[in-house]
């Protein structure tokens, strides 16, 4: 096998995995802090992609600029949704929050449908290509991977090196204890959910940096599914776990595809997905709590 191809596939897997990682981190964070499985995660990713599209087409703003808009919008939306809906559901049965976020997901998707219609949209943003041996990777996708990695590093530093980060972790571990210590638990929940929403919307923008076409109101559904797999793989609630899970997923995809291609399967991509889920199943049998949770 061509050694250039192996190096290229490895780099490509890292880029793709990094993007999958950031997509999953928001979901994991919200579960870690508030024990809410956010089914509106996919819809938020979709809104992130539409944010990039709207600002690129309407104001000629590159997706890099839209990243910040998406974070701010997501943060505000998350905090608002917490005070409006989710605050009443903290501590409720997980099925209740599941239904609430499912409703939110439908609401967000239908608003997008009303506003943008069902047509597939896209825009053209290119920074050129870098040649790795005989193969090409776009700068914008590398940038997307690097931004995803940086975000995870910054988020980890924020959670482990700042007072607010400590408060977030404190509330995640024991809300009553945190309350007794004088932490405003509601504000911390609002912040945590806001960050989770912000990350989800931001990952939508990052996805458009990797691939700026095919934006539609149901764009988020396959990413939500993959996020669940990745989060479960990494361990629910673990940020590092989600990111590493994403990297594993990305690498698996770029390794399995050429393998099935070589074996003459007529649709190697479908077989790749199948195998990824089999790997997850096996991993869950060995470590049902995920790779990074004890």
């Amino acid at each position: 096998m061509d050694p250039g191809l192996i190096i290229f596939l490895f780099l490509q897997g890292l880029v793709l995995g990094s993007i999958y990682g950031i997509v999953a981190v928001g979901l994991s964070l919200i579960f870690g802090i508030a024990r809410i499985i956010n089914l509106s995660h996919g819809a938020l990713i979709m809104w992130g992609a539409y944010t990039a599209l709207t600002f690129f087409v309407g104001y000629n703003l590159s997706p890099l600029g839209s990243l910040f808009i998406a974070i701010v919008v997501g943060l505000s939306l998350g905090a608002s949704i917490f005070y409006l809906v989710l605050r009443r559901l903290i501590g409720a049965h997980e099925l209740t929050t599941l239904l609430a976020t499912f409703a939110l997901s439908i609401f967000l998707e239908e608003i997008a449908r009303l506003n943008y219609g069902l047509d597939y949209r896209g825009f053209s943003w290119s920074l050129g290509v870098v040649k790795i041996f005989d193969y090409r990777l776009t700068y914008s996708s590398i940038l997307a991977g690097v931004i995803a990695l940086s975000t995870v590093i910054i988020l980890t530093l924020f959670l482990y090196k700042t007072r607010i980060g400590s408060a977030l972790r404190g509330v995640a571990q024991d809300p009553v204890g945190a309350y007794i210590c004088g932490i405003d638990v509601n504000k911390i929940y609002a912040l945590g959910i806001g960050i989770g929403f912000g990350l989800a919307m931001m990952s939508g923008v990052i996805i458009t940096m990797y691939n700026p076409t095919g934006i539609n109101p149901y764009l988020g559904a396959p990413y939500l599914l993959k996020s669940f797999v990745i989060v479960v793989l990494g361990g629910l609630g673990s940020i590092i776990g989600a990111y590493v899970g994403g990297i594993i997923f990305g690498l698996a995809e770029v390794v399995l595809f050429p393998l099935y291609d070589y074996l003459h399967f007529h649709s190697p991509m479908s077989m790749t997905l199948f195998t990824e889920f089999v790997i997850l199943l096996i991993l869950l049998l060995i470590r049902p709590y995920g790779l990074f949770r004890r």
Partner: protein
Amino acid sequence: MSSSQTSGKIFTPLTITLIIIMLVIGFVGGYYASAVSRPSAPAITYTYSVPYTSVATQTLYIERTIYQTLLTSPPATTPTTPKPTTPPPTLPSEIVIGMAVPLTGSQGEVGTAGFNGIKAAIKWVNERYGGVHLFGKTIPLRLVYYDDESSKDKVVQYTERLITVDKVHFLLSSYSSPLVFAQAPIAEKYNMLLINWGGASDLIHLQGYKMIVMVWTPASLYMTQAIDALLSVKKDPKIVLIYKDDEFNRMVAGGVRNYSKKLGLQIVYDKAYPTDIKDFTPYLTSIAPLKADALIVGSHFADGQLLTRQLADQEIDFGFIAMNIAPCYTDYYKAFGNLAEGIICPSHWEVGASYTPEIASKLGVEWFGPTEEEFVALYREIVKDPTARPPYHAASGAAAVLILVKAIEKAQSLDPMAVRKVLGEMHLITFFGEYKIDPVTGIQIAHKMILVQWQKGNLVVVWPPEVAKSKLVFPIPTWAEKKAGKQATP
């Protein structure tokens, strides 16, 4: 977590056995899917010739290949209900045509074009032609439609509603093979005539249905013209074939595979991609080192656009790129600008390559409907854009209406069975081209494909030579050259 305490017990010999069984089923299933979803080349067991008469009235013959599937499909029976000879006691005040059509969703762009073509044809029938001539009276057409949102569930639901609640007289199909495939059994169940202008997969017509009639060329012949054109400029080309894993494109790919095999051509890469594809990078990584001469893509609109974007981003060059559907649209050029230069699209019809009453008279076939100029003017009125260029889907939709109207008039009946019988025997020419079907399966056998290529910002007919308005550009400029502004100049 408590689950960690039980993890040791979960991984028992039983679970390992189950996993192994599942893996075996998955892999064998995958392999089996590979085998059955490719109409394999040796399956050509039967060939027949269809007179292929060009617009320039030169007679050619193309040999059409019919797959094993056609031969093994359950035999359909031709409707035998005799047409009524006496007028019905009361004629309706209007003839209602029903349609579920994707105006939104992944097929929305193309579905809307077809829908506008249908409206233009109905306008011609009602306002210019005076209505359908039935028992000495003229009866106008009325269209009842629903947006099926490109959803298989909704197209089924609306088709049933059109028949049972709206009580339409006839149905026009939805757009795209998967949607027509989904709605066909519903029409058949109610013995309702369905004029298929939007689903090109041969398989729709190989299910034994007797009420489905095809207007355009079947999918298995979509890309054979592209191979002929390629051979005219490149001897012994290396071909890459990728296609969407759906009913329509599987047939397109089967056609390419069989035709290439017959001509002794080399397909160096032949793979399907999932219908909801979001990223072509893995395919492009495999294709790039092959240094092939030609890329043939079985696609629809959204995936065709995505592939073009990623081919351009990764600068994977081919001297010849032929792609279904997406490049036939002006929106394609709007989205990609100069990057669209040189891309080829197989088309059923283009402005400037229409049939005329003169051609019909030379061929000795009956003419019906508006001329190209009339149709284009009506289409522009409908879309309220004086410069709009109707794509072939619009023309196909319009042809469906015209063929139906002519058949009703010939049958002098609104009975779907009587009209279907006439449709099985009728030979007609409209501006869209010839109409004649295989009376049993309803597959179109007379209509022919043309090839169009983006050249200097215009979509021009380049194949077959007798109708070509410009010379085929080969090799097309590379992506880097196109990014620098180079155009495909003949």
